[in-house]
């Protein structure tokens, strides 16, 4: 029997709409959803390779309980009731001794995160966190400080922009199926792209202007651009007068930050910085300073991301075609968004979190995400209190939080580690109990609310029956909650019942998704009127250059610029990034994706390599104070001489994932666990390394 199922991909984090063609319970083909605007049937290599995941014998197949020492990969197969009983008994005894807050739950943010939060609320722990600060936390903080919205509530108009400036967001490799295509089409119609990155990526090879910047100095360049824009009167007066507060203070602040000053710091010629500022002004407001995707590079990340958005505001490009837009929610057209289970009225919990977010120590990061990279020290120091158990849901702290040795040392201290996962990930291998989740083709998920010019909802739907003894995450958590005696917070038996409940009140039913895979609240795009209709959620209702959020927390909106330390003699700065073929740490063992990109290499500038006696293709040792690894050198003049680069996500240590086991090097084993203490992001590019031939 043949059927077509509209669903949502989960080979990476973009959640592209797909159409799955199923014949006799086997996926015969995956396509992009032909009805979804901007997708029109297309997909990417990772999406296509999902079929390789479905029947993979090297994924988790049934619940397992550890029998040997941690990390030894000695397991016994368990039934679901047995595994859940085991976990609940352990959790209950930990709660009895140390309180519920000694349990943490970390996950890669996903459509059913509201279920995970419900679980933690139900057992009474404040310690739910997502991966967000390992990805973009400071961007979230920066946007809230300026607009009162988080970054996810803002999007860029790639189709109509005339000139886009991109800082290291490698949009033509780490694909966003809609945006990447829209941008390449716009460029064919004459849109200009300026790309700034210490390394020549595919994006750099398509750009009209490319700056090989000294890593970590983009903020200086932005301050210099703001300096010129204000000095030469290149900004949108009408817009800024109506919508911006703090322009005068900004002007005073950037006074000393001339293009000549920025040239010394960044290596970008002053004249080119001035040219770019003038060009952007000429094309305003159809210009975008791209605020990026991953925002986890440096300890001053939040100020860099603010500077990007300040440039956009000065160009008047917020809420205009060819610029940036705020995403509109269903309420704009009198609609109701899907319900989320964690909005139930739970008993009050002491809000002191393991990461201290929300206290004067760490006031600004988003408490809905927490700050993941604080976990290892919190466990090791029992500060602010002892942590005894961790549940990790599709999130691998060993590969994702920097300084893996420290992370492992912290994990060793726990009384219980549970993984809900699909892969033999590094954390699954280090867990006490593994609860295997069905992959996205095998399960229905919570409703995907998509705000935008047209608010919509998409649905991930089960296409085939599970190949192994696995379950959807929200069912696993419900059943665990039942064993813990808090099952009444989970009023559903099946995923379909959960979706029905979420949709009740929206005016839509699950059957409405049959035709196209999504539903829309309106057919007309919603624009806010630029003269009086912009709805900023800051206390002043304006774009706050001087941020009340910062000032109230005792933090400066415009602290004096201090260049980041340069690598000492004999050291290079390690930077990292992504490719076409893998999503972070999750896909390296896929047989198709592993075939095209099995391991990472170390990019090193040819002059630097020559000095160190390293030739292209040599195996080298890359080492920091945190760890080291052996990796193949890629010698090139396409990277800044003070820098080396490797792709993130390789060097896996779980031997049950045989294809990716010990292939390449894991950046997390080498990087220092550094944080932007204001914005909350981890600062991945803060580590200096030594390179020597093997």
């Amino acid at each position, binding site marked *: 029997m043949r059927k077509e199922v509209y669903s949502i991909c989960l080979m990476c984090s973009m959640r592209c709409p797909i159409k799955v063609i199923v014949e006799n319970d086997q996926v015969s083909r995956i396509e992009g959803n032909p009805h979804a605007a901007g997708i029109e049937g297309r997909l990417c290599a990772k999406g296509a390779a999902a079929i390789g995941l479905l029947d993979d014998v090297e994924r988790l197949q049934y619940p397992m309980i550890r029998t040997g020492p941690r990390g030894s990969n000695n397991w016994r197969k368990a039934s679901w009731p047995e595994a859940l009983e085991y976990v609940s008994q352990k959790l209950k005894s930990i709660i009895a001794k140390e309180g519920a807050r000694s349990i943490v739950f970390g996950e890669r943010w996903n459509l059913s995160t509201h279920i995970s939060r419900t679980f933690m609320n139900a057992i009474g722990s404040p310690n739910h966190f997502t991966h967000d600060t390992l990805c973009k936390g400071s961007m979230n903080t920066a946007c809230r400080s300026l607009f009162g919205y988080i970054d996810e509530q803002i999007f860029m108009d790639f189709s109509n922009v005339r000139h886009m400036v991109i800082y290291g967001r490698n949009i033509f490799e780490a694909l966003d199926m809609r945006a990447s295509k829209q941008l390449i089409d716009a460029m064919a119609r004459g849109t200009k792209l300026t790309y700034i990155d210490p390394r020549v990526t595919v994006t750099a090879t*398509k750009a*009209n202007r490319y700056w090989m910047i000294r890593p970590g100095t983009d903020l200086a360049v932005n301050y210099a651009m703001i300096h010129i824009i204000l000095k030469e009167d290149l900004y949108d007066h009408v817009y800024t007068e109506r919508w911006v507060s703090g322009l005068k203070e900004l002007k005073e602040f950037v006074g000393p930050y001339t293009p000549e000053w920025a040239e010394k710091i960044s290596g970008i010629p002053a004249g080119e910085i001035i040219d770019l500022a003038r060009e952007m002004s000429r094309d305003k407001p159809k210009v975008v300073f791209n605020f990026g995707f991953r925002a986890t590079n440096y300890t001053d990340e939040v100020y860099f991301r603010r500077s990007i958005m300040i440039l956009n505001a000065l160009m008047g490009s917020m809420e205009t075609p060819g610029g940036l837009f705020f995403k509109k929610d269903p309420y704009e057209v009198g609609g109701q968004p899907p319900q989320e289970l964690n909005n139930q009225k739970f008993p009050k919990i002491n809000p002191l979190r393991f990461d201290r977010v929300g206290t004067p120590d760490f006031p600004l990061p988003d408490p809905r995400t927490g700050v993941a990279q604080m976990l290892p020290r919190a466990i090791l120091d029992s500060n602010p209190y002892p942590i005894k158990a961790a549940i990790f849901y599709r999130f691998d702290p060993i590969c994702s939080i920097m300084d893996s040795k420290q992370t492992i040392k912290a994990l060793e201290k726990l009384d219980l580690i549970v993984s809900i996962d699909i892969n033999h990930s590094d954390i699954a291998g280090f867990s006490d109990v593994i609860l295997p989740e069905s992959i996205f083709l095998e399960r229905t998920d919570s409703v995907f609310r998509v705000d935008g010019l047209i608010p919509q909802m998409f649905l991930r739907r089960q296409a085939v029956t599970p190949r192994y003894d696995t379950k959807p995450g929200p069912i696993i958590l419900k059943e665990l909650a039942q064993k813990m005696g808090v099952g009444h917070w989970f009023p559903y038996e099946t995923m379909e019942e959960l979706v029905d409940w979420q949709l009740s009140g929206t005016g839509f039913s699950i059957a409405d998704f049959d035709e196209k895979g999504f539903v829309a609240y309106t057919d007309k795009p919603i624009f806010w009127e630029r003269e009086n209709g912009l709805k900023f959620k800051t206390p002043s209702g304006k774009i706050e250059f001087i941020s009340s959020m910062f000032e109230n927390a005792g933090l400066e909106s415009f602290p004096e610029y201090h260049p980041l330390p340069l690598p000492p003699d004999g050291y290079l700065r390690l930077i990292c990034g992504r490719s076409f073929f893998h999503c972070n740490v999750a896909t390296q063992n896929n047989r*198709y994706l592993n075939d095209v990109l099995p391991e990472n290499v170390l990019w090193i500038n040819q002059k630097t390599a020559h000095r160190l006696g390293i030739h292209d293709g040599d195996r080298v040792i890359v080492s920091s104070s945190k760890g080291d690894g052996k990796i193949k050198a890629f010698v090139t003049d396409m990277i800044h001489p003070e820098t080396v680069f490797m792709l993130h996500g390789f060097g896996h240590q779980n031997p049950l994932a045989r294809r990716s086991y010990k292939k390449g090097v894991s950046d997390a084993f080498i990087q220092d666990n550094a944080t932007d203490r204001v914005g909350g992001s981890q600062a991945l590019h803060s580590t200096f390394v030594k390179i020597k031939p093997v």
Partner: protein
Amino acid sequence: MSVYYLLQDIDKCIGCRTCEMQCKINKGISPEPRLCKVVGIGPKWVDKLPRASYVFMNCFHCENPLCVAVCPTGAMQKREKDGIVFIEKNRCIGCKLCLHVCPWGAPQWNPETGKVIKCDLCKDRIDVGLLPDCVDACPMGCLSFGSIDGMSEIIRIQYNMHLSVGEKIGPVSCG
């Protein structure tokens, strides 16, 4: 030549190899054979800008295909109605002669079967009015497929787009 043309807009190609991936997955074969592949050349510096080429290569479906001429069993064939060069799996004995003679590396070795496999322009799909998998999947929409007459129209339009836009970067180097 077949009566079809498969055109790549090289300015839009980013070398993501989705074409290759979707092709082999939909043919249900193992990862190793690459019935089509995007070959990346570069990057190198051209007038202070880093430039690279990403060149799509599948099979040219030659008018006088060398692979067909050397095939000892008649497994490699040219389809009469439209000139598609394809291989009849059951007749291939895995002698690899076609691999040796093809100047463009189009025939591929399939380690799972011990036989040769090659691009057939997804003839089963085009026979029912669908596009070849590589064209259908391309994230950048840089591949187009159709009859040879239609293609020259596309090239003319693309050429004029370049002229009218004016500010476009010069041709990329293949060096």
